[in-house]
C-alpha cells in the first residue's frame, strides 16, 4: 500500500471513478498527485500490480448498478453531445467506459467534476501521464465537459 502514492502521477485516470467523491476531495487528490514522486524503481509487473490494486480499490467504492450487458445505453434518438467523443475512449477504457481491467480506469458513472479536472490537468501538463496528456491536448474544454456529462450518466457497471 505504501507504494501506491508513488504511482499517483502515472495513473491515467486512476484517481477517477469514485462516485461519492465531492469537489473538495477531488481537489485534495489533485494536490497530492502533483507533489508525488515518480516510481522509476518499480518493475513493469510491480507497476501493473499496483494499478490493478488501485483500480480495484476505486471500484469497491462505487455502488454497482444492475444493468443487463446487452441493454443499449443510448436511446434510439439523435446522438447526445459528447457521446461520439466519449466512444473514442472505449478502445482502451471499454465500451461506454464500463471495462475494468488491469490498467485502464472505467469512466462510467464518474462525477463530472473529477473527469473535467483530471482531463484539464492532463491537458495543461499539471499532471504526468503516459499518453493522456496527448489525447487531452486534442480536446477543447467544451468537448471535455460534454464527455464528462455523458460518462456521468452511464451506469457504473463493471465486468471484471
Amino acid at each position, binding site marked *: 500500500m505504501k507504494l501506491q502514492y508513488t504511482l499517483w502521477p*502515472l495513473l*491515467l485516470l486512476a484517481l477517477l471513478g469514485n462516485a461519492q467523491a465531492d469537489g473538495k476531495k477531488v481537489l485534495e487528490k489533485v494536490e497530492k498527485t502533483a507533489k508525488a514522486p*515518480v*516510481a*522509476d524503481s*518499480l*518493475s*513493469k509487473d510491480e*507497476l*501493473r500490480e499496483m*494499478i490493478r490494486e488501485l483500480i480495484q480499490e476505486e471500484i469497491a467504492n462505487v455502488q454497482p448498478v444492475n444493468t443487463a*450487458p*446487452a441493454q*443499449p*445505453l*443510448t436511446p*434510439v434518438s*439523435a*446522438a447526445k453531445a459528447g*457521446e*461520439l*467523443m466519449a*466512444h*473514442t*475512449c*472505449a*478502445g*482502451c*477504457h*471499454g*465500451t461506454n467506459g464500463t*471495462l475494468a*481491467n*488491469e*490498467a*485502464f480506469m472505467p469512466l462510467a458513472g464518474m462525477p463530472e467534476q473529477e473527469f473535467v479536472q483530471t482531463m484539464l490537468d492532463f491537458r495543461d501538463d499539471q499532471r*504526468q501521464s*503516459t*499518453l493522456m496528456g*496527448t*489525447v487531452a*491536448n*486534442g*480536446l477543447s474544454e467544451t*468537448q471535455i465537459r460534454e464527455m464528462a456529462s455523458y460518462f456521468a450518466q452511464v451506469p457504473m457497471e463493471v465486468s471484471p
Partner: protein
Amino acid sequence: MNLSRRNFLGLLGATALAGAFPLRSAFAGAQAHVVIIGGGVGGATTAKYLRMFDPNLKVTVIEKNPVYIRPYGSSEVVTGHISMDELNVSYEALKSRYGVNVIIDEVTGFDPDKRSVKLKGGRGVRYDKLVVSPGIELLYDKLAGYSQAIAESKVPSGWIPGAQTALLAEQLKAMPQGGTFLMVAPPNPYRCPPGPYERPALVAEWLQKHNPTAKVIITDPKDKFVTDQTMMLGWNRLYDFTIPKPFLEGIPASVEVKQYSQPGILEWIPAKDGGTPVSLDVANKTLKTEGGDIKADVINIVPAMRAGKIAKAMGLTDDKGWCPNNRKTFESTLHPHVHVIGDACHADAMPKSGFSANTQAKSLARALVELLAERDAPVPVWENTCYALAGSDYGLYVADVFELDEAANKINRVGKFNRYLRLDATPAQIRMGAVYQQAWLKSFTEDCFA
C-alpha cells in the same frame, strides 16, 4: 474474383431472395437492414455499435473466416511471447449479446442499383445500407522475385496474420547462431505504422537471449516513419543502436543518448542509404537493395498494399487502390449507400490502424442510424492511438485526435502538440507504456467484438 455485377439478381427468383432474408427493409417500410462485408475490427465494431445505438436495426456481417485472427499484437507470436491460438477472436458475443447475424460466406456478386449482394453459397442479401470493411490486400508481386507462393513457403510476410506468422516464428527459432534476420519495411501507405519497426525490435530482444551473436537488419524504402525518434531512442538503450544524426535533433540535453563504437544487434538502413528493396533472390536468400545485396538467414517482407480485394471487385477503389469517400459518412463516392471504412478507405491524416477503424466504425454507426431515421449525420470525431513496443518492457505510442474539414472533405489532426511518448519520459512512464500496450490488446478486442 469473379464478381458478376448488376445482372446476377436476374438469375435469382424473388422467392429465393425472400427465403434468404425476410425483406423488411426500407422498401417494405419496417426494419432497416445494414449489411457489413468484412468481420475485422471495422466491420465488427460497426455491427456492435449499430445494435447498441438502435436495437430495431437488422445487422448482418458477412465474413469468410469463421474466426477472426487479430493482426494487432501478432508480432508477439513471432518471438513466442504468445501462441497463434491467442490471436483468435470469436464472433459469438456479437451474435449472442448484440443480436448481429453473422454469415460465414463470401460475396460473389454486387448489384448497387437493387442494393443486393450475392454470396458464394447462393444466397442473395438485400440491404438499405452496405458497409464494406475489407482491410488490405498485400501486393507481393510488386517486389521482383517475391510472390504469395514464396511468402507462404519460404519468405513470409505475416502482415495479415495466419500461417505465415507461424512460419516466421519457426524460422526465427531455427535460425543458426550468429545469423541475420532481415526485415523489409513497406512503402507508404501501409497498415500499422509502427509495426514494421516493433517486430524487428522484439526479434532483437529475443535474439539477445537466444542467439546473442545474431543481428537484425531493417531495410526501408523510406527515410522516416511514425514514432521513429522515440523508437530509435528505445533501440539506442536496448540494442546498442546508434541514432542517425537527423533524429538526434530535439532530444533534450537532459536525456542520455548512448554512443557506440561497434554496431549493435539492430541496424536500420533508410532509403537515402540504399535501403529501398529492388528484388528478392529466394534461392540464395538474398535481397537486392539500391545500396547492395543483403544476405540473410530469415527474411520478413512487408510488401506494398492496397484495399482488400473485394473492394476492387465491387468497383469501390480508385487508381491508387484505395476507396474514395465522403469523409463525414464514409459513403463511397463511386456507389451510393455503400460506406467503406478502415484500412481500405482514404482517411487523410488518420493512419491505417485498428484503432482508426474502430473509431471510424463508431462514427459511421451513428451516421447510419441518423441517415436511416432521415436525420443529419452528426459532426464526426475520431481518435487514434498506436501503442508499440521497443522491447517487452519498453512501451511507446503515437496518439491523435482528428476532426473533419467538411468543405475540403478532409480529415485533419487537431492541434500541433506532441503526439509521441515524451523524449524525456521517465523509466516508469516507459514501463507503464508497455503495461498499457498489453492491456490495450485486450480492452480493444473487447470493445470491437464483445
